[in-house]
């Protein structure tokens, strides 16, 4: 199917690496990870987390109770500013696709504790939760009425949101789509990953020999995608395209990736084929790289198989932690920034090659050249997705 270009008109990011693009690039240039040794709430678990310390925008009414929504709106405002869009005008052809995990669940422990003790607790936490469906809330705040999807594909949610938005644009359902992911740190998610035995008590070390698991983080990465005709019509310009997207399921296990990365391999091939690009045209990959034993082993095998032993790749989770539903949006943004700045940072946390991974990430700031770069995501449920970003020269 012949597709018109899908342009990336604006990008906004917020994570522990920085409250915007400029701060994030500064962190990347320093190459220093900065996890907090403590959780931001009371818990029986002790592990590093990556926290956002920037001030978040105040939102009206119950919207203000959702930290994930406020993170999304902070990133969105930066993206709109870059896109040269000050406001939307109630158009029906503007879609919103946002991935998340925490905002989709009523994980309010004080409320549930009071409920269990028959204390008839006030329902405000329930009403807050009902108000915080991210795509709906963003659409309502902006006053736009196009398609809305809140995607809950666990750790690939943000990437899958970009894919859904690209499908809307490719088929002509939308002129503009707001897409990405947002997630906040949450006590229940931390307990969950701890229970699975995949949380490290030390700062995470993606693809490293001594990797011991992930650190959770929070943040948001939002991209404004725009059709070629709409971008031209409003006289705007962009140098970046969302050139390809692929997704495939392992159909293997509820929480573990396929050991040979079957689904990830298919997702990468689909994204490349959609853009008509061969692997040797891809200048670098922003890998999912969670620092868990299984993820990094499977992903490393696939990257070596598809792109060859000299592939240049990074994991940025050493700067942000694993931001779950936000990760795909953030890392697509970081991929774009690598193409734009023509360098990628060292993989924070990586020190020693791993025997079970045939390739190693870049361990110093590395200049890159080329037109294409890819971001990959793997997730609970066996979901895998990949986005290919193009810098138009």
């Amino acid at each position, binding site marked *: *199917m012949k597709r018109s270009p899908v342009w990336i008109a604006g990008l906004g990011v917020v994570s522990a690496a920085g409250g915007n693009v400029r701060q994030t690039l500064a962190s990347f240039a320093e190459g220093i990870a900065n996890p907090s040794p403590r959780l931001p709430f009371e*818990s*029986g*678990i002790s592990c590093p987390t990556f926290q956002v310390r920037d001030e978040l925008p105040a939102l009206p009414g119950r919207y203000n109770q959702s930290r994930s929504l406020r993170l999304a709106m902070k990133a969105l405002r930066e993206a709109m500013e870059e896109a040269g869009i000050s406001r939307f005008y109630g158009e029906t052809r503007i879609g919103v696709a946002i991935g998340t*995990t925490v905002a*989709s*669940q*009523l*994980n309010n*422990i004080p409320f*549930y504790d009071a409920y*269990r003790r028959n204390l008839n607790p006030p*329902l405000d936490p*329930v*009403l807050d939760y*009902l108000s915080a*469906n991210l*795509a*709906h809330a963003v659409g*309502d705040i902006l006053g736009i009425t196009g*398609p*809305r*999807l*809140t*995607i*809950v*594909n*666990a750790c690939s949610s943000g990437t899958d949101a970009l894919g*859904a938005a690209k*499908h*809307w644009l*490719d*088929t*002509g*359902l939308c002129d503009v789509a707001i897409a990405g992911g947002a997630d906040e740190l949450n006590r*229940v998610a931390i*307990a*969950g*990953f*701890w*229970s*699975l035995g995949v949380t490290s008590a030390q700062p995470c070390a993606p693809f490293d020999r001594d990797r011991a698991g992930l650190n959770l983080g929070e943040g948001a990465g939002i991209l404004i995608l725009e059709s070629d005709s709409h971008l031209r019509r409003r006289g705007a310009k962009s140098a970046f395209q969302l050139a390809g997207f692929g*997704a*495939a*399921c*392992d*159909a*293997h*296990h*509820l*929480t573990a990736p396929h050991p040979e990365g079957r*689904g990830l391999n*298919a997702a990468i091939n*689909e994204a490349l084929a959609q853009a008509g690009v061969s692997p040797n045209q891809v200048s670098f990959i922003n890998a999912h790289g969670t620092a868990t034993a299984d993820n990094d082993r499977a992903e490393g095998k696939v990257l070596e198989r598809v792109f060859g032993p000299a592939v240049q790749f990074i994991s940025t989770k050493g700067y942000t932690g694993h931001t779950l539903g936000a990760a795909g949006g953030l890392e697509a943004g970081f991929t774009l920034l690598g193409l734009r700045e023509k360098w990628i940072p060292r993989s924070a946390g990586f020190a020693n090659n791993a025997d079970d991974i045939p390739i190693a990430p870049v361990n110093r700031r590395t200049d890159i050249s080329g037109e294409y770069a890819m971001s990959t995501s793997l*997730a*609970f*449920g*066996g*979901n895998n*997705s990949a986005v290919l970003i193009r810098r138009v020269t």
Partner: protein
Amino acid sequence: MSCPPASILGIGAVTPVGRDLSTIAERISGPIEPAEILRVSDDLLADPTSSRGLRRADRFVRMAAIAAIDSFANADFKGSMERVGLIVTSGFGPHGRGFKFLDGILDCGDAEALPTDFSHSVHGAAASYIAGLLDLRGPSLSTTDFLFGFEQAIVLAQCWLAERTCERVIVGAVEELGKVLIECAPRLLPAGKTFPLGEGAVFFALGPESAGGIAKIDASAQAAAAELVIVDEPMIFAKPLPQAKSARTFSPYFGHTASNSAFQALGGLLSFSNARLLGSPVSTRPSPLPSPGVPGEGVIDTALTFRTSCDSSASILITKTRRYQ
């Protein structure tokens, strides 16, 4: 511009009035005792897989998986499983299991809660089981929405099919009635308002428009005229209802869920195969629709689900292509 309609090739449903489609059709054509809660019978949730693939699955996953498996069994697909996509939508997700994980935190501490409760508490658990049981290796997506999740899932499935990303897409909705929801929902309603809460799963196996099938389905266009309009009742008539020969609701049979439109669409599809309209007539105030019972109203070829909130609405148009056998 909108996507081409998709073809409905298979239907699977697990509902408070049954799982077998002919049983459901029979039950939704007659009177029903008013009830506050309409639950799916445990008898319908036995593991249909020879591999005991659902042995660890909870109620949420079982409802979804059984409906999805039934829908795909009717689709008669012989192609590559890498070309089959999956979209599962739910408003509240597996919240019963989510609260069970919170029980673990409260009773045993953050570090001692059970991993199986956590892994089954995420929205994507149902899709993961379905993909594994059917070996689906195309794109797999879970979405959440309290109003229009099923409509949006159908739209995306139409996109996947139109772009030939997939040859088939299994798309469905699942909702589970957990104890917290049952107790909180009445407190969220205006005083004096009640309606039955429901649960269950409805899945359709979709193919491209050219694939034939029982009916065509399209959620990408704005509400169009249809012979039958299917609405939630009681609903807020914030927007005028689309014009139609008749109006019906299936909510008294299936109960109300965040994914109501999936169940309403099921009712519409089953109406195609009957000489008379199924479901319950709707008081159409204030919309000027003909009163139920006009001659010929039992034979319909088009049905439109219509759901509205205070400031938006969504619809799904279903068009009959041939009668059920």
